C-alpha cells in the first residue's frame, strides 16, 4: 500500500554538477545569476476531509508505515480568550482530571497500559488534545477522547492539586531564563493586547481561577463548530469515518463561540525600551531584542523564512557566525519570526557570560544592521534557498507532525497550496525581493529588549539601549 502519494524523488542533477554548483572557487557564479539546487520534490500527502452536521471538521490521512494512529482535536481558543490569565491553560489541563465517569487515575492507567499517550495543551490562539496509540486500540482511546472533550468532570479536589502544582511550576520555570524569556518579551511587545497574555497564566491569577470559570470556558469554546479533528496513521478510512461520526456526530454546540477581533488595538512601538529582569545569581545574560513581526497568512511568509535563515536561522547564519564562530561569545545566536493570526513578533536571541554582555549585544545589533547596510548577495541567497528546501520534508515525516500540520491549517486558515507551492516560492525569490522584505518587515528602529541577568552588573549597560524598566525574576508574572 502506497502511503505517501505525492512524494517522488527526482534525480535530475548529477553529482558532478551539484558539486560544481557548490564549490566556492572555480565554478561559483560571478555574474550574479541565480543557481537552483534540486532538493527533490515534495508535496502534501493525500488526505480526506469531511464536515459533520454539527459543523465539526474532520481530516484523515492514511500513513501505514507503523501500526499506530495519531489523533488531535484542535479548538479555536487560547490565552487570547482569557478573562482571568491562565483560564484557557487550566481548562485544557483539567480535561484530563476525570471525564465520563472515569477518574483521572483510571484514564491514566488505561492509556498507559496500552503504551499510548494522551496530552492536552493550550497556546496563544488554540487548545489541543493529542493522542497516539496502536491501531488495534482505536476504540478504547477514542472513547476516552470523546469523554475528555465532551464531558470533562472538572473534579474540584484534583483541580486544587493541579493548581498548586502549576503555581509552584511557574516558580521553577523562572529558574531557567531560557524557558521564560519569550513570555516576558511577548508581554513587552504587546502590552495590553490579548496577544500579551502569558499562555501559562501567573501565580496570582492561577490562585484566583475557579471551577465555574473552567466550565464556562469549556462550554463557550469546546464545541463542534469551533474545532477540528485530525487523524493520521494506519487505519481503514471508511471505518474511521463511521467511528468518528458515531463518537462526535450527536454532539450539539451551544451559542456560537465569540472570538475577539485581534486585529484591533495592536501596539505601535515608538520608543526603544529595555526590560531588565534581575536574577542576582545569574552567571550569564540571556537577551532578546526585536519588535512586531508578521501574520501567519502574510504572502511573504516563505520569503521571510529564507531571509531569516541567512540572518539567524541556521548554523552559518550571520548572527551565529559572528557571535559564536568568530567571537566565541556564545554557544548560539539566532533570530526568527513567530507569526500569529493577526500579528506576530520578531526577535534576535542569544546569551553570553555576564562579563561580555555589552560586547555580545553590540555585536548582535551590528550584525543585525547588516540587513540594511550590506544586504544579501546571490551566493548566500542560493545557499539559503537550498537549505530551506532541503530541510523542509523532514518536518512532515511522522503521523504526529502531519496531524499537527493539519491542526495549524485549521487555526491559521491556510491550505495545501502553502505546502505544495513552498518550493516554487523559495525558488522564485530574487535579490530584489529580499531588499523589499528587509525594508518592509524587519524592525529597524524602536527595538524592544529583554535582558535576564545579574542587574548589579549589567544595569548600566542596559541603559545604553533604551528606557529601562527593572523588575525581579521572582516578581509575579512576566512584566507589566
Amino acid at each position, binding site marked *: 500500500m502506497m502511503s505517501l502519494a505525492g512524494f517522488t524523488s527526482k534525480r535530475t542533477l548529477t553529482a558532478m554538477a551539484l558539486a560544481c554548483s557548490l564549490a566556492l572557487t572555480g565554478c561559483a557564479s560571478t555574474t550574479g545569476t541565480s543557481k537552483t539546487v534540486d532538493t527533490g520534490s515534495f508535496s502534501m500527502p493525500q488526505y480526506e476531509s469531511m464536515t459533520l452536521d454539527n459543523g465539526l471538521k474532520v481530516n484523515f490521512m492514511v500513513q501505514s508505515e507503523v501500526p*499506530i494512529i495519531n489523533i488531535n482535536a484542535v479548538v479555536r481558543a487560547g490565552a487570547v480568550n482569557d478573562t482571568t490569565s491562565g483560564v484557557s491553560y487550566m481548562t485544557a489541563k483539567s480535561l484530563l482530571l476525570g471525564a465520563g465517569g472515569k477518574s483521572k487515575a483510571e484514564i491514566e492507567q488505561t492509556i498507559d497500559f496500552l503504551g499510548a499517550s494522551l496530552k492536552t495543551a493550550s497556546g496563544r490562539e488554540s487548545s489541543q488534545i493529542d493522542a497516539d496509540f496502536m491501531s488495534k486500540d482505536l476504540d478504547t482511546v477514542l472513547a476516552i477522547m470523546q469523554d475528555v472533550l465532551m464531558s470533562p468532570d472538572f473534579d474540584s479536589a484534583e483541580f486544587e492539586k493541579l493548581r498548586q502544582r502549576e503555581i509552584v511550576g511557574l516558580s*521553577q520555570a523562572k529558574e531557567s531564563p531560557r524557558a521564560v524569556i519569550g513570555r516576558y518579551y511577548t508581554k513587552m511587545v504587546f502590552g495590553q493586547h490579548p496577544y500579551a497574555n502569558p499562555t501559562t497564566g501567573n501565580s496570582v491569577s492561577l490562585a484566583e481561577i475557579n471551577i465555574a470559570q473552567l466550565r464556562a470556558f469549556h462550554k463557550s469554546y469546546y464545541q463542534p463548530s469551533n474545532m477540528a479533528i485530525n487523524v493520521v496513521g494506519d487505519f481503514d478510512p471508511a471505518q474511521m469515518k463511521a467511528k468518528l461520526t458515531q463518537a462526535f456526530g450527536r454532539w450539539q454546540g451551544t451559542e456560537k463561540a465569540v472570538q475577539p477581533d485581534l486585529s484591533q488595538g495592536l501596539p505601535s512601538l515608538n520608543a526603544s525600551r529595555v526590560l531588565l529582569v534581575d536574577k542576582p545569581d545569574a552567571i550569564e545574560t540571556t537577551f532578546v531584542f526585536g519588535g512586531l513581526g508578521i501574520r501567519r497568512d502574510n504572502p511573504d511568509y516563505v520569503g521571510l523564512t529564507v531571509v531569516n535563515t541567512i540572518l539567524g536561522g541556521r548554523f552559518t547564519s550571520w548572527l551565529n557566525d559572528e557571535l559564536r564562530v568568530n567571537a566565541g561569545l556564545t554557544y548560539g545566536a539566532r533570530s526568527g519570526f513567530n507569526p500569529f493570526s493577526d500579528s506576530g513578533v520578531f526577535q534576535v536571541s542569544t546569551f553570553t557570560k555576564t562579563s561580555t554582555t555589552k560586547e555580545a549585544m553590540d555585536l548582535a545589533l551590528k550584525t543585525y544592521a547588516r540587513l540594511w547596510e550590506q544586504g544579501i548577495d546571490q551566493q548566500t541567497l542560493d545557499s539559503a534557498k537550498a537549505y530551506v528546501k532541503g530541510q523542509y520534508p523532514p518536518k512532515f515525516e511522522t503521523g504526529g507532525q502531519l496531524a499537527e500540520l493539519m491542526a495549524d491549517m485549521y487555526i491559521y486558515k491556510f491550505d495545501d497550496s502553502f505546502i505544495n507551492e513552498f518550493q516554487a516560492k523559495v525558488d522564485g525569490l530574487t535579490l530584489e525581493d529580499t531588499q523589499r522584505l528587509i525594508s518592509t518587515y524587519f524592525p529597524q528602529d524602536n527595538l524592544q529588549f529583554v535582558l535576564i541577568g545579574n542587574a548589579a552588573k549589567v544595569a548600566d549597560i542596559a541603559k545604553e539601549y533604551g528606557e529601562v524598566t527593572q523588575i525581579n525574576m521572582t516578581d509575579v508574572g512576566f512584566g507589566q
Partner: protein
Amino acid sequence: MKRRMTALLVLLSAWVSVAQATTQEDVNTFTLDNGMKIMVLEDSSIPNANMYLFWKVGSRNEVPGITGISHFFEHMMFNGSKKYGPKMFDRTMEAAGGANNAYTTEDITVYTDWFPANALETIFDLEADRIANLDIDPEMVESERGVVQSERTTGLENSNWRTIQEEVKGVAFRAHPYSWSVIGHESDIAAWSLEDLQQYHKTYYAPNNAVVVIAGDVNVAEVKKLAKQYFGVIPAQTPPQAVRTVEPLQKGERRVFVEKASVSTPNVMLAYHVPSTKHEDYYALDLLNTIFSEGNSSRLYQGLVDKQVASNVVSYLPLSFDPNLFYFLGVANAGVDAEQLEVNMIAEINRISTEGVTQQELEKVKNIKLMNFYRTMQTINGRANTLGRYELYFGSYDKLFSAPEAYNKVTIEDIQRVAQTYLRKANRTVGVLAATEGADL
C-alpha cells in the same frame, strides 16, 4: 515505497514482525577493508537521507587534565580540514540543502548529517575530508574554547539536572572517568594544547573505530560505491587502548550538596551504581526504569507527584559501555523540604524491593516499550540512530531484533531482584540542590 507493517495483537509477534521487516528488507551492512562498518536502510518516503557516524570515543577515554576533550573535539571536527577549510564544512553542506549536528556522551561521539538525497556525494566528500585530513587551526581552537565555555555556562544557568548531576558523578565515581561531566572541567577547557587535539584525532578518528549508518532515499549499490571511493581509502590505525579503570565497589552512602540561590524548591538526585548495557540485568533494569517514571500511572508520579510531595520526578538509565548510574531526580513541591522529598523518594524506590511489582505493571511497560519503538521507527533519523546505538552499546545491531524476546523474558521476580540488588543505600549517592544549605549552629 514505505514498507507496510501489519499490526498484530501480540506484543512479541508484533515487534518481531517490525524487526524482521526491517532486518530482511531494509538493513544492508558491509565492512570496508579498513574496518569501517556501514549500514544502509532504503526508505523513499521523503526525498531526504541522513548519515550518522558513530565514533567509539567519549569522556570515558579522557584523563584528568584533558577532561572534556572528546566533546571539544566534536566541535573541532567542524572547524577545517585540507580540502574544506575553516567554516567550509557547514557552508558547503548548507548550500547543498543539508544540515548537521553532533553529540558527545560518556562513551561515544556521533555526527549527524541530514540532507536532500541528491547531496549524498557531497556529504561523503565532506565527511571523508575531515576524517582523513583534519587541519586544526590554532585561531579556531581559541574561539571554540569560548563557545564551549558558553555551552557549559548556559547549561549550569538553565538546567538543574546538569548542575546537580555534575556533582553527583564526581562523588559516585572516585576512580573511573565517568567521574567528570562530558563537557569537562572549566580549567581543562581553557588549557588543552594543539598537540593534545592532534593526538586525539589520530587515536580515535580511525575508520576502524567507527560505525556509519545511512538511511533514506538512497540506493544500496550507490552507497557502497561512494563509501569505497571516499571512506575506503582512509587507512586504519592501531586500535585505541582499552579503558582500564574499574570503579571500586561503593561501601556506604555518599552525599553532596549544591547551593544555588535562585532554586525555588529543593531538587534531590539519587544515583545507584548499575552494570553496563551488555549485562544480562539490563532489560530488567530498563523495564524497572519505565515502571518508575513513564506516564502518570508510574510509581514515582503516583507516590510523589499525585501526593503533592514533588512537582516533578524523573528517572534515567543511560546506555553505557561500563558500569554506570541509575538516576532519580525529584523536584520538591511548595513547602516540602529536601529531607522530606528524599525520604519519600527512597520509600517509593524501596517499595519495589520489598513488595515487588504486579504482572499488570510489567505488561504495561512492555506495551510502552513497543509503542516507543514504533514512534522511533517512524523517521529515518530514529532508524539510523537506533541501529547505530544497538551496534555500539549492545555489541551488534542484531540485538535490536532479539530485544523483544529479551524484554519478554523478564518476569516480575526479575524486576524485584534487580531492585534489591542495585537500589541499596550503600550503593547510593544523594545530591541535594537548594537555595541555601544553612549555617552551622
